[in-house]
């Protein structure tokens, strides 16, 4: 069920990607062009529904004439640009950035990272056993979702999703500075004392699993979480007239979490508390 709305036709601009001439619609990013050309550039803070903050820097590429490397996810392609994606310089930066990340937070639930670590021959252990880590206990302070900042890469996606890009609730923000910066609600309070409305849109965009459904968190703790045994069914939310699309993730005949298709032009993956968390009645068999 994918509806692709047709936008206003855009002019094409020409530039060079790894020596090959390419054409891309005006306004596209270097990353868009890379993907269109079938090139795989790793990304973490970029997300399909949000304007990237270009904070993770794993997507850097070389642009002729630029003193520094350039984040492919955010830099718009310009006519005549010469972009190189796989140079030693770009690969070196990606490797070290992956090492820095993997040595400071737990990436075990971040999709694709294990593959990139291998591909770039990253060795996060080389900073030694005393390398500072974000060692934080998961915050379990409500029945709906868990915040485990020991896995957070500070991609700002949840902040943007909760803030002016989608939800407009502004319940979370980055607090502190430097290595001590953390995602936090006001006064670093428990979620239940914050402005959070439990729409779960932040969980939807979190690329690392730092934010997760309580159901998923508990099952992982119990060792019963198994994506290979899960099926996904997209349906329509029955609660109100908006009619958002829900994707039910089902394992062993139980709904274990609810997401929403990002390419849906109405919701772009966003839901409200009822659609996202209100699924218990479906499986209440008493």
């Amino acid at each position, binding site marked *: 069920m994918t509806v692709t709305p047709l936008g206003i036709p855009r002019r094409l601009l020409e530039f060079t990607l790894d020596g090959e001439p390419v054409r891309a619609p005006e306004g596209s990013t270097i990353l868009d062009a890379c993907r269109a050309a079938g090139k795989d550039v790793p990304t973490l803070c970029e997300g399909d529904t949000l304007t990237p*903050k*270009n*904070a*993770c*820097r*794993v997507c*850097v590429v070389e642009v002729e004439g630029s003193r*520094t*490397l350039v*984040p492919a996810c*955010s830099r718009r392609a310009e006519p005549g640009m010469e972009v190189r994606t796989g140079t030693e*310089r770009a690969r*070196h*930066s990606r490797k*070290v*950035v992956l090492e*820095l*990340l993997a*040595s*400071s937070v737990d990436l075990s639930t971040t999709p694709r990272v294990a593959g990139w670590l291998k591909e770039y021959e990253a060795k996060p252990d*080389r*900073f*030694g056993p*005393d*390398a*500072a880590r974000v060692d934080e206990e998961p915050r379990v302070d409500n029945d709906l979702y868990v915040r485990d900042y020991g896995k957070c*890469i*500070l991609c700002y996606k949840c902040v943007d999703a909760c*803030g002016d890009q989608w939800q*407009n*609730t*502004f*319940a*979370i*923000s*980055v*607090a*502190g*500075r*430097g*290595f*001590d*910066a953390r995602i*936090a*609600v*006001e*006064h*670093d*309070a428990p979620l239940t*004392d*914050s*402005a959070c409305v439990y729409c779960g849109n932040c969980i939807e965009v979190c690329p690392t699993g730092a934010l997760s459904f309580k159901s998923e968190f508990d099952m992982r703790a119990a060792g019963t979480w198994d994506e290979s045994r899960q099926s996904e069914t997209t349906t329509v939310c029955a609660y109100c007239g908006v009619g958002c699309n829900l994707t039910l993730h089902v394992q062993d005949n139980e709904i274990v979490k609810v997401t929403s298709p990002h390419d849906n032009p109405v919701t772009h993956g966003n839901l409200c508390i009822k659609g996202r968390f209100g699924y218990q009645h479906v499986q209440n068999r008493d």
Partner: protein
Amino acid sequence: MDLRFGDSKPTDEERAAVDALLGPPESSWEGADRSDADLRWARGGREARNRRDLLLPGLHAVNDRVGWISEGALDYLCRRLTVPPAEAYGVATFYAMFSVRPRPATVLHVCTDLACTAAGAAGLCADVESRLAPGSGVQVERSACLGLCERAPAALAIRAGETARPAFEDEARPGPQGGPGAQPPGEGNGKGRRGRTTQRSTAVCAPATPDTAVRAATAPETAPPEPPPATAVPQAGDPALTLLRRVGTADPADLDDYRAHGGYTALRRAFALGPAGVIREVTDSGLTGRGGAAFPTGRKWQATASQPDHPHYLVCNADESEPGTFKDRVLMEGDPYALVEAMTIAAYATGAHRGYLYLRGEYPRALRRMEHAIGQARARGLLGDDVLGQGYAFDIEIRRGAGAYICGEETALFNSIEGHRGEPRSKPPFPVEKGLFGRPTAENNVETLVNVLPVLTMGAQAYAAIGTGKSTGPKLFCVSGSVARPGVYELPFGATLGELLRLAGVRDNLRAVLLGGAAGGFVRPDELDIPLTFEGTREAGTTLGSGVVMAFDDTVPLPRLLLRIAEFFRDESCGQCVPCRVGTVRQQEALHRIADRTGDGAADDIALLREVGRTMRDASICGLGQTAWNAVESAIDRLGAYE
């Protein structure tokens, strides 16, 4: 936006502090008592939201009065400004001068940065900490460079309290010598005034001894007064000076004296030339930005002036926080009207009617002097709706930083003024197109702007004749460390490092010179013939940066210094991007490991440092991360630090 505020209420003091800034609340929506009318109308919304930029001043107001920012105070401020509390919390926790935990009303910042470390800051800190143990009512904080390096070691005491600020009274009172430039005692010393001890006060203490630092914190009125700004200018009074000529000769509190010393002739010439004429003159003079990037000022102004989008803004970056830099402080303290005049000219040229002076929070005297100068200029029609009767409207607003080196980065500075976290934005778009409040903005630092005055008074040709072909004009250098006469020096571009150091009285056993501050690089004692120009330093494989020259003799332990530089960047990284947020930590850890090692024992970690450093330089968002490794790398390569 549907904001939720918690249940915590502000105390009367906190409420008063906020209301003193914003005026009393008008309805219960803003935190006033509920009235019947409130049930029928709602106010706030867009109007209040547009005042988001008052968040930082609001946080200052509470912190100044109470010493820290409680939940109730933060929520009240958010309610008044329609700012989500989570965002305000993120802003409050970004700055070093604020605390969201209770703390004593007095905080003593003791500098542990490069010049102060070389001058024995470690001992000073230990001594002060033992005398001001918890319970003394003073919190001691080890701080980054306080911009007082010429008088290292330095300390700054800040006591929270009510601000009934008769700052100008202080200024007007004749000082010990009774002459121009005579010194007021520390701001609002509070001695006898209203007989209260809850007066807000600040005391700058440099050079500090354990005794004077403790007194500055516990009984500011008994601490020695701050010496006049001219003591930071060893050449003061030399008629050959251009930028520093009024420091110590004209009274910084007296507008007439400023005029008697040539003030406001440049602005008159500007009005005669018209905006385009001013830009042409500045372009022809070859003036380049003095903050380190050396971008041509005329080009920046032209690019701003020609933007169709309005309004345009002018921002003066007075957040000099580069360790070893204090020239902007000395200019603002010693010749504040010069900056007011220069900002007026820059605004006129770029078509701005509002200028922001973003002044670093650790400069109490510069703040008072600039407030006074701006007030006087406004009262005399030199700012306001009709500057000099020329029909041009321009006014200046001061914004106080709150302890964040990164806010000296131009786009971080915009975010800070706008009431967001001081995180750099990614460029493009550039500020001349989308700067402060998303509008075309010309941003210059204090020294750059002050150079515009001689450009206009002596004319572009004469100005361009000073210095070298590519680096024109006079340049200020901040010399500190192992020299007999530390201070701000003015020399034409092209003088050599050796000439400057001889002027400052360099000692024989020189081991290393740090050029350009923590983001700059070290050079050896046998490299003193490097010409002090942008192109000359570049050719020598180093950088002029903002004009910092720190000399270290062989008594200063180099590894300790390098570790301090790494600590500085670790502390000051905004935390936005991974190479810098984690890279600065890994570098500091590696330097810590090899602190006492050399040769093979250090080789692995040095290789690691190089790899991480290369990535930080290549992949960080802003200049902080990109330059954080420069100084250490130069120490390894040029000084053989760990051989």
